[in-house]
């Protein structure tokens, strides 16, 4: 007699729950969501920096008095749209002599040899907070400043700004739509994984229902389990991404300059919570579906 005729003593558990598959796919889905969040955070910061590098030049009248210049500076320093770095408002005064040097450096033509007087005006260089970097805000700001006495004109490189803003907009829309697609795909993946896992439990659910178990009693263990799995998968995905983030910050100098390590960590901490919530909703949906099925539909 061959061995294969021996009855198998180890019967497979009725509707054994595929723990490993579920954990793996939830971890993968949350890893992708997390990775994308990190990319998004850093891209966001990058565009912010690009916008903050926009400079607005406030050209002063040739005849301006020192006290008048001071009062203009005071007004500028107090404006809400002025970028502050380390609490210092980014307003820089360039006097006529410095302005001349900059001009010569840029143009290489010493016109002072021809002209007696220095024709170059003194000016302020302002850096603007990124919220005010769109063209209409900038033109409002310019108009406002131009109303002050002693101002010749306010100048900024409009073409460049339009271009920067346009590119940022395109990139944001692309990243945003990609994020939505990824998020939906990940949630669907988790949802389907849990639904399939619970499919193997449908007869157990049915059995409990037939003998008089309440809905809550039947739902609870499945929901608790899915929640825990979501939580653990989220923690696992978060830990993986944390390692990756550390590595990237060490290896890529530009990333460290962006200085978004802390906000990245916060984003990673959201992963377990997101996992638990998605697990809860998916399992609740799936169990409720099997609870409402008749026996024929279950087969």
């Amino acid at each position, binding site marked *: 007699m061959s061995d294969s005729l021996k009855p198998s003593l180890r*019967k*497979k*558990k*009725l509707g054994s729950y595929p723990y490993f598959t579920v954990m793996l796919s939830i971890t993968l889905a949350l890893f992708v969501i997390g990775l994308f969040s990190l990319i998004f955070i850093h891209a966001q910061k990058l565009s912010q920096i690009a916008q903050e590098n926009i400079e607005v030049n406030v050209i002063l009248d040739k005849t301006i008095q020192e006290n008048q210049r001071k009062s203009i500076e005071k007004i500028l320093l107090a404006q809400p749209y002025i970028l502050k770095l380390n609490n210092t408002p980014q307003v820089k005064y360039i006097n006529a002599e410095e302005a001349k040097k900059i001009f010569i450096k840029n143009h290489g033509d010493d016109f002072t040899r021809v002209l007696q007087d220095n024709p170059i005006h003194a000016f302020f260089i302002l850096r603007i907070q990124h919220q005010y970097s769109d063209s209409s805000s900038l033109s409002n700001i310019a108009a406002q400043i131009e109303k002050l006495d002693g101002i010749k004109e306010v100048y900024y490189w409009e073409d460049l700004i339009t271009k920067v803003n346009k590119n940022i907009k395109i990139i944001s829309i692309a990243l945003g739509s990609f994020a939505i697609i990824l998020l939906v795909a990940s949630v669907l993946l988790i949802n389907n994984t849990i639904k399939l896992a619970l499919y193997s439990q449908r007869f*157990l659910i*049915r*059995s*409990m*229902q*037939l*003998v*008089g*178990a*309440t*809905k809550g*009693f*039947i739902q609870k263990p499945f929901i608790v389990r899915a929640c825990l799995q979501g939580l653990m998968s989220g923690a696992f995905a978060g830990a993986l991404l944390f390692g990756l983030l550390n590595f990237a910050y060490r290896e890529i100098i530009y990333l460290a300059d962006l200085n978004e390590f802390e906000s990245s960590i916060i984003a990673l901490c959201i992963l377990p919570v997101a996992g638990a919530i998605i697990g809860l909703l998916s399992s609740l949906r799936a169990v409720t579906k099997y609870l409402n099925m*008749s*026996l024929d539909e279950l087969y």
Partner: protein
Amino acid sequence: MEFSSEPIISVKDAIIYQDEIPVLEKLNFNINKGEFVYLIGKTGSGKSSLLKTLYADLPFNHGEINIVNHHLKNIKKKDIPFLRRKIGVIFQDFQLLYDRSVAENLIFVMKATGWKDNAKIKSRLADVLMRVGLSSSGNKMPHQLSGGEQQRVVVARALINEPAILLADEPTGNLDPEIAEEIMNLFKEINKSGTAIFMATHNHIFLNKHPARVLKIENGKMLDSSKEIFSFSFKYV
């Protein structure tokens, strides 16, 4: 003098549906406390449909059915578990869970129906196993038991919550005649202790050997042996 208590099942002008097709119409009958009633009829005549309706597994909207003090018409979903705890059901299609022992099968039902105290669970487990004559089989797996013994476990499972009535859907359908007789005797014992029994069966030997009231489904109508005389036999199609 009439027995003054309410019937345990009372059915008035009921229509039983399967998939929106009426299977049984103008049903009228009562079953009293402690009564033993057979339900007979051809395969496909609607016996299972009637029993499923009684334990609220099929929706019921036409007529009146009152069972263990629950009105089935428009019964709320959340009340169904509590109805099922008051009736013991021997299902035609739901047998034991074969991945766990006899005791675990019974404990599964106790936990599902709100039992929490472990000492009470243990003593009730011993009680029901003793009642079906399987005191020493608690740790066995279902596949280690004979067909008759498995069916005894199914009966034990139905008895757990001390139901006032057992609904049994062809409980001896797949058993040898001698084993079927043993199970029948088990039902009679249970009935003697006061539990009403409503049993759908094909087994004509029972009807003669263990006479009791018979409800017969014929051409979508119900005949009642306590009210009229009719032949218990019918042709299989």
